[in-house]
Structure formats: C-alpha cells, structure tokens
C-alpha cells in the first residue's frame, strides 16, 4: 500500500489517547491492559501514505494529528451478516394467538 493519498482527501485517522499505563485505576482488568484509542475523520492536509502520521482538518474545522488508517471510510454495518430466522416465529405466534384481528 504505497499509493499516495492526495491532500484534501476525506480520511479517517487513529490515535492513542491514553496508553495502558496512563489509564485510571477504576477499570476492569481487561480494559486496563489495552490503550484508550480514538478515531475521527477529516480532510487530509498534506499528501501521505497509509499508516503515516498526518494532520487532518475535521468538518468542524479542528486540526487533529494521527495515523492515516482509511480513505473515504465507508459505513461498515447493515442488517447483520447472517439472517436470524427465529424472529419470524414471533410474528407467526402472536398473530395466531390474536387471530381475526379487529377493524380500527
């Protein structure tokens, strides 16, 4: 991935807000062992490659530094990676119990 990402591109950056040793004491053990990480998006200020440290200007005009992780970041969720058929049975069951229905 040596392609240059042009300045002005809309990108996502990542940074570590707090390293594990900087985190507060009142945390569960599993959380204590990992850093507090941050992601945000904005317009790349200078040409750069992925995984390089960059500066972006966010949509509100803030300047934020971080590691370039993605270009034109897409939304990575939807209606689930698998269909859950159990839900169908709920509709069948409640319609059967109520039956007929009523005219409003």
């Amino acid at each position: 991935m040596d392609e240059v990402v042009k300045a002005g591109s809309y990108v996502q950056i990542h940074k570590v807000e707090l390293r594990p040793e900087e985190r507060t004491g009142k945390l569960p053990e599993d959380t204590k062992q990992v850093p507090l990480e941050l992601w945000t998006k904005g317009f790349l200020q200078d040409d750069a490659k992925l995984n390089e440290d960059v500066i972006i200007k966010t949509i509100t005009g803030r300047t934020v530094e971080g590691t370039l992780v993605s270009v034109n970041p897409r939304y990575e969720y939807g209606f689930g990676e698998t269909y859950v058929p159990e839900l169908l049975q709920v509709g069948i069951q409640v319609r059967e119990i109520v039956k007929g229905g009523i005219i409003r």
Partner: protein
Amino acid sequence: MKQDISYSAVMARDNEIMKKALGMNYEKYESGNIAFDYEALMADVGFTLEEIIEIQKSSGVGNTPLLELRNLTELARKISPKGKGARIFIKDEQCNPSGSFKDRRASVSAYMAKKLGYKGIAAATSGNYGAAVASQAAMLNLPCIIVQECFDSRKIGQPEILEKQRKCESYGAEVVQLTVGPELFYTYLRILEDTGYFNASLYSNYGIAGVETLGYEIINQCRAMIGREPDVIIATNAGGGNLTGTARGALKAGANHTLIYGASVDLAGLSMASDHDFNRKSFTTGHTGFGMPYATDPDHSDVPRSAARPLMYMDDYLIVKQGEVFYITETLAQLEGMERGPAGNTSLTAAFALAQTLDEDQIIVVQETEYTGAGKSPQPQLSFARQNGIEIKFGDSDEEIPGANIILPDHPSRIKVRHADLDRMKKSYIRKSVQHVKATFATKEDISYLMAETRKDHDFVVNTLNEMKIELKIPVLK
C-alpha cells in the same frame, strides 16, 4: 503558554472547563454539605413550560401522536386472567426530527448555545442523543462534535452505535469515536477546552426541562382522547432524564395520581467498562448497567449536579430481559405495523407485562418510540450477538444470562412483571450522596433533602445514615 494535557492536569481543570462550557456556576446550588437546591437549578432554566413548547415548535420538536395499541392490548388480554389486560397507548416519539424523544432534550441546549453566543455545541453520547444534538445544531447552523464510546480493542463497533455515528455525520457533525472506558470524559474535556463549545450535557437542567413537554403532552392527549389521565406512564430508564422530565411534565399538567414507572433491560453481571463485555450486550442503552448506577449516583455525570433524579419520581422500577424486548419489538411490527427501535421498546415490554396484571379499563402509556433501521433493528442486533458467541434460542425468559444467551420467550405469557428493589437502591443513593461530598455529618436540611430525593420517611433516611456512622446534627427538643 501551552496547556498541560496530561490526564491528571485536564481532570484537575474539570470544574473550570465545565463552568465555561455550561455558562453557569453550580456552586450556588450547594448547601456546603449533602443537600443541594435542585428546584433552584431547574428554575434557572429561565423558561416556562409554555416557552419551551414554543422553542421546540420552532424546530419541529414535540406534539407527536399518542396511539392506542389495540392488537397488543388484545394479545395481553388473550393471555391474562379474565377482566385483566389494561389498554396500552404509545407516544410515537420517532416523529421528532431526528427520530427520538432526545430532540426534546437537545432543543433547549442548542437554543441556549446559540443565544449565549457559543461557537459550537458538543455532547458525549453513544445514543440517539448525539443525533438529536447534531440535528438541532444543523437547524441553527452551529458546528457540532459528538464524542462516542464505540469500539472494543479489536475495533469492533456495536452496530447500533455505528448507525448513530452515520446519523450524526449526516447532519454535518464531527464524530469522535473511542474505545471502551470512562476516560472518554478526559477526551471530552479536552475537546470542550480546545473548541470553547457549549456542553449540551444530557444531565443539564436544559436537557431535563426539554423532556417536561413530553409528560405534559401525554396528560393532555389522554384527557382529550379518553377523558382522563392515564393510570401509569412507563419510561425506559438509563441516565434517568427521560423519566425525570416526563414525571415533572405530568405533574405540571396537574396529573397528581398518574404513577410513573421506570423500565430497564436486565444486564446484570456485565461490566459497562469492560472491553470484553462491551460487545456481549445487545442493548447500548435503556439497560440496568446505566439505569442502576445513574439512579443511585446521579451526580457522577458530565455536570457537577445532575438534573436527572429518577428516584424522586419513580413509583416502581420494572426489569425486562433482552429476549423479551426483541420479542415485543417484533410483535409491535407484526401486530401494530410499527417498526421501531428495540431500546425504546424496553418500556413497551414492561407495559405488556404490567397490562396483564391491571384491569381492562386501566390505561398504561408507553412514553416513547425511536426510529429504527440498519444497525438498530432486531436483525442486525441479534445477528451481531450470534457472531459474538451469544446463544439465541426460545425458552423461559427467567433463564436468560446477559452476555451468554438471549432467550426469546417461547410464549408471550413468559413476559412477566419483575420489580427492582427500590428500597435497596434508595439506601445506595443515600450512601453515594454522603460520599459525593465526603460528609461526616448530616443536618436537618440534609435529612429533608434525602427524604425528598428518595421519597422515604425520616426513619428510613436516619437509619441509613446511622448504618454509615454519620453524625446527626439535629436540634433536640428539651
């Protein structure tokens, strides 16, 4: 001079940053000991209920339909003892501009941010509230930053929260996403300090005053539709503001006999700050993981004193299971033709359980719905759960173990009323109130305050203080 941005330095500037970001000084409400002047805090909103209605009307917020769920009521009656099965009504809050009641909560804050001349507005939230603030900010052309707790350490995000990110961005807001942990507050403070933006806290007096219109509308709509006030209003309870604002609004409408119930999804055993547990829950709000700690310790939020004080208004607190809420969400779509988000249906699930125990002529109002769609509806939620190793099956709701399985009730009669232990919560509230100010004694004023906050009698408060070995400074009559 460059500011010290280390964790300890930023947290030490907490009060100073918040004072600037809220445009108000909370110190004036403090008594110097346990008590604080809640009604003075609420009065300082500076608007009457009628003025808030006008502010909300100007941004398309409020005046949502109240709908009777006849088929759901019919379902409850089919499985209830003869004569039981109260009528269930629902306030279709998804009709607000950003799709939830949270627009009410955001509207007054956004109005104030603009009026006070702030350059922008910010909020720390992973929920519908972010979308509400972003939407209100868009209407006022204010820049907006939303800070979300979103991912676990594998950068796996809750689909529901990812959808909120998209929605906020669709309104032109910047979204800052974080991994799990309460130090989100540190990042949030840094952003407030850097930007000088207004803190549209969920727990500010503006936020709660904005929800009062919801309770007020429900009472007036019930009077118009059925000629009387409802017997019970049920509010999904997380941070407590929804219930607090609704209850206050109902009282302002003169409904002194309507009972106010809270409802939360049972997530007992899952830690809200755990990286591992984060994606093992299928509800990101409306659950006991927020509902319990915020009710018993309201003043640990992002404002010095929270205006959300649910124990002052809650007549009962009903607990439902994740599988039950998915079941009722599906039922709402299949029997009523209304596809609405799962978390907001927490109170609907509790209403369905409660209806089976009340007489046919009694009225229950569920005070919200929320929008649904990608990331939010039961399909993505349950698919995500299955992907994360959660077992999904039909069975007995009482056997559900949060984080291990989701049990869809094998019959709607499995959906039963379960009560939280309010007295235990109230004792915990008293302990936290004492610890909050590191009190070593309690005055007569403190005791009266704790009685009002918990709606318990003098003995209950005094006994709890005695258990904590708190010195009582009460004048003794001789």
